[in-house]
């Protein structure tokens, strides 16, 4: 298998990720242990199970070839890039989730992947049937115990999601990979006619992560909102690339990436809006903004619009700036110390992703993860 892999190595290039030096991250040809720890914890509400929702743990079961389950290898094609190719050939675990047509859930489905101290390749495939309505909360994290602190870990995740016609999906993604982990996360979503996606991603990993979010608005009238929040701390290198491809007519996309660079870390936001010929009356807007708290860090917001269809509306905004000194002065004038005032402002930027998210207790995972990263104190300082 390894020799075949090496031959095929020359076929697909590394993923295109502007401003991030993926080659230097050494994510290719990973040594992957087939039995590496890959825990899956899930909360599937009763109403979902009763309605036929199925969740398969890919570490323990072969993928289930349900007829019509379109999300395996059809959204993120293997030849898309080398890392996706390698992931799909050697994944050790992950999950497959099917929400049948017409299923309307009031409570969220929660899937949590907990990795071990080893190189990993994780695969996720989600299929949402026509007319279904669901909230999915997913989280991937590395081990948090302090053993093996020196051992570096490399890995990848490839996730595919198909949303069939008229379905309505809210996807909340929390990435909390730890200080030893270098990873490439590739999530690709396809929307059919009239489908709607509200995607919120919290990028809270602690070392080197390149996170790619791709949405294909294939069906007419499909709409997607992609919101990313990220926090980079000392020495972290985090890159986020959100791309929406407009193919169908009357499609609407909003990309909104907001981040804070607290110390001498690196935070890159790439936004790509691609409107293909024929995607008439497309409406595409993207904005990326980074707040820098330290002069030593590096923050970049790169918007890109590729428009091949004249009958469209498209806009973009990108900004990288300092934390507002007047705001800080105002907060401090009420007795808050500088760090406290900064934390309030940072929390304000990142918690934007929780607006309108509802009250379910599972959603506290999102708030707690964000809070953990804001208040993390590096003991060796």
């Amino acid at each position, binding site marked *: 298998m390894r020799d075949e892999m090496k031959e095929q190595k020359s076929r697909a290039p590394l993923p295109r990720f502007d401003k991030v030096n993926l080659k230097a991250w050494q994510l290719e040809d990973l040594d992957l242990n087939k039995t590496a720890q890959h825990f899956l914890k899930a909360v599937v509400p009763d109403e979902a199970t009763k309605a036929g929702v199925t969740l398969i743990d890919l570490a323990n079961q072969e993928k289930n070839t349900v007829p019509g389950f379109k999300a395996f290898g059809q959204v993120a094609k293997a030849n898309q890039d080398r890392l996706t190719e390698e992931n799909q050939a050697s994944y050790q675990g992950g999950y497959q989730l099917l929400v049948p047509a017409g299923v309307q859930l009031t409570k969220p489905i929660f899937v949590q992947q907990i990795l071990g101290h080893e190189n990993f390749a994780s695969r996720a495939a989600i299929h949402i049937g026509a007319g279904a309505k669901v909230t999915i909360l997913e989280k991937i994290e590395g081990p948090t115990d302090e053993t093996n602190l020196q051992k570096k870990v490399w890995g990848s995740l490839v996730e595919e999601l198909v949303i069939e016609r008229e379905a309505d999906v809210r996807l909340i993604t929390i990435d909390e990979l730890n200080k030893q982990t270098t990873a490439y996360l590739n999530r690709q979503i396809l929307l059919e006619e009239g489908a709607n996606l509200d995607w919120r991603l919290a990028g809270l990993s602690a070392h080197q992560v390149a996170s790619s979010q791709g949405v294909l608005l294939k069906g007419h009238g499909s709409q997607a909102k992609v919101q990313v929040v990220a926090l980079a701390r000392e020495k972290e290198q985090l890159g986020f690339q959100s791309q929406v491809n407009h193919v169908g007519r009357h499609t609407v996309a909003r990309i909104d990436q907001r981040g804070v660079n607290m110390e001498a870390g690196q935070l890159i936001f790439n936004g790509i809006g691609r409107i293909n010929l024929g995607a008439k009356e497309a409406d595409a807007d993207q904005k990326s903004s980074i707040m820098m708290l330290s002069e030593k860090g590096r923050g970049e917001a790169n918007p890109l619009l590729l428009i091949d269809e004249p009958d469209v509306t498209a806009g973009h905004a990108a900004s990288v700036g300092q934390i507002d000194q*007047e705001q800080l*002065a105002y*907060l401090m*004038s009420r*007795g808050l110390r500088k760090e406290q*005032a900064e934390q*309030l*402002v940072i929390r*304000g930027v990142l918690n934007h992703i929780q607006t309108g998210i509802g009250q379910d207790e599972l959603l506290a995972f999102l708030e707690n993860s964000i809070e953990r990263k804001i208040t993390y104190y590096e003991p060796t300082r």
Partner: protein
Amino acid sequence: MNELTIKNLHVSVHDKEILTGVNLVIRSGEMHAIMGPNGTGKSTLSAAIMGDPNYQITAGKIEIDGEDVTELSVDERARSGLFQAMQYPSVVPGVTNFEFMKAAVNARRPDKPVSSLQFMKQFEEKRAFLAMKEEVGHRYLNEGFSGGEKKRNEILQMLLIQPNLAILDEIDSGLDIDALKVVAKGVNSMRSAHFSTLMITHYQRLLDYIVPDQVHVMMGGQIVKSAGPDLAKRLEKEGYAGLRDELGLDLSLTDEEEDWA
């Protein structure tokens, strides 16, 4: 905090001297007002007392209970009992009014912070007292607030933080009568032996609702006259020119001696 003493204070901004030797003593329990023509340094005085780093003290001292506070930062001075209701409060998106005020209150009680639940009661009580809308706690700090709402929000903060000395920088500007009455109600409710204020204002009207113990007039960067509340009424009638001439000061005032060429 019992006493704020300002001795011969000279303050410059961008090397331009604005305060030319201010002397002032405010004791606990006293309500002071400062009036004066535009550009005379009233806001500079308030900023210097709070410790705004944009203002340089070139001579003189600011003391709290006999201790020089010039080296203390803004947040340190705030924690020691000072509060300034701003003329132009900042908007801070993403931070709710509730969250912020709770943090401000807890900044003064690091060992025994108040919980959200406990604070909710106090917040609701003061909010209702100032006739502010129920949703004000959830709204982002001053975001979408009119000028009058922002001023009321400053008073709400003051009622929750309970400072010893509140500097009210033109708290009446932009307020209609009803809003002004609510603000005055808030300030008057704080009157006690442990509370003092320094109100900066242009208009006599505020001082009808919050009657001061002393009124000071600033001209040319220093306090040129101090007296009781009647001084404000006199200025209302005569303007500043009369007082300036009486004191024999060599100063030009706004709208005087303009070239109509």
